[in-house]
């Protein structure tokens, strides 16, 4: 029964202390480990500021100093999000962090990175200013050239807005959640040369 297999593959492989442990292996001492949680922290900031911008509507930030500030926090959160994520990604590469059945952790992490690029891009499309106009007119050529533009039209602001606000946060949030669950389930990868199947 597939329902049983789903349960066996998820909760039954988890020990309660794996989710929020109070101890970590002794080798978890580098500052590089902070990049992962800092990425999540930036995502939280993006979610909160994005929620405020959503509730106030797309024109608000053009006409309100408070709105402009929230837009600025949203923008700088994006910049920080990518800085932390790239540091995290490079760190995991040099750790060869896919070792020990952690391939899917790596894969979900990279897919998060790619989904973040698409999310950031759609955010730039819906600013409602010259930047968004220019980006949309240039990006359309890339999408059209690959046949994608027939289905995702960067000049259709409504489509980009719904994808950025309603769809991608769900996708990205889900991917980040899946990635974090895999990290917790498999634990932090041990140092290279600690032995075993590398």
């Amino acid at each position, binding site marked *: 029964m597939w329902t049983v297999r789903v349960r066996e593959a998820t909760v039954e492989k988890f020990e309660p202390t794996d989710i929020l*442990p*109070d*101890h*970590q*292996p*002794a*080798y*978890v001492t*580098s500052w590089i480990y*902070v990049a992962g*949680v800092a990425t999540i*922290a*930036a995502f*939280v*900031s993006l979610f909160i*500021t994005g929620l405020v911008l959503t509730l106030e509507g797309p024109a608000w930030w053009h006409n309100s100093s408070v709105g402009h*500030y929230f837009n*600025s926090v949203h*923008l*700088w*959160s994006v910049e*920080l999000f*990518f800085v932390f994520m*790239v540091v995290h990604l490079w760190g995991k590469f*040099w*750790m*060869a962090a896919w070792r*020990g059945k952690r*391939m899917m952790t*790596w894969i979900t992490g*990279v*897919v998060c*990175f790619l989904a973040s690029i698409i999310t*950031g*891009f759609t955010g*730039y499309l819906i600013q409602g*200013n*010259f*930047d968004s106009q*220019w980006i949309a007119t240039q990006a359309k*050529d*890339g999408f*059209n*050239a*690959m*046949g*994608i*533009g*027939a*289905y995702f*039209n960067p000049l*259709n*602001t409504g*489509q980009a*807005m719904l994808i950025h606000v309603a769809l991608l946060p769900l996708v990205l949030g889900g991917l980040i959640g899946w990635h974090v669950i895999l990290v917790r389930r498999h*634990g932090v990868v041990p140092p*290279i040369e*600690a032995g*075993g199947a*590398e």
Partner: protein
Amino acid sequence: MSPALSKHDPSKKWSGPTRPYDLIKEAVIAIVIVGILAGGLAAVFSSPDEPALTLKSWALTDPADFVQTATSELAGTSGTAGYGAPYNTASDGQVLGPLKLQKWAGVRIPINTAKDFVVKPLTILPDAAVQTAVNAWNVGSADEQTKWATSYGDALAKSPKALSLPDTNNSYGPVPTMITSLLGMAINGALDGALTTSDTPLPTDFTKPMLFIADSGTYFPDYAAARHLHGDQWGVMNETGSWPGQSWLWLFSFFYQVEPFKSSENADTWVMGLLGVLSVALIFLPFIPFIRRIPYKIPVHRIIWRNWYRRKQD
């Protein structure tokens, strides 16, 4: 050396020495610090908000460019008119070797530049002379329409600052009246409204006005060039002003700066295709033989886990 530090299967749960680690505390501290950092950067550096361009701003700032572009939309010689899919069948568009991905996707956003950008907006003007000109255009044959608009476009090209030209040889048909009227519509803002509401009275899709503006010969591209946004200015990742923009698109932007992509007619397909291949390679990097061994050959991990290795030596 401690037995726990000697050999460990990385697929097994760690059974060696541990240290206290409060994940919730770490997350809360990270959220507070990142929040303060983002809030501080926003307070100091703000964010760009250069007002959007409109058909009205174009017609007021560079009316001669507007007139020439509008005439090219009628003549079928503008960028959009000759674009191909997804707007029309005027060309195959870009190809990726034998793959005509653009053409195969089909015309899903049909645009007839003469009809959608010029003729249809003019029909809402309550002006008998304009409607006579529109009727004359509509009853003309395709050959006549092309001849009128092309002749007028050629004449405008020889007088690049002209907003209208007299029809001394009686060869422009109704085109001068139509283009002059369209310029008037653009200047008073009516053309922006006409194009954005042509499909629905509550628009969220700006494809038509933006394609029209993007066909501009000088106004739109010069405005972007002055803000270092062109493709050859690394514009894919830039923003107006000095803000960092989408710096994570640096590799995407880089390929547009180098040959053979830089001068290729199919640069978009090649760059998009290449980035697609590299993205898939990054996803499946742990399976790529040589690449997956790099972290073992270049021991950056010795710095990351220096405390552990030092302890192992002790």
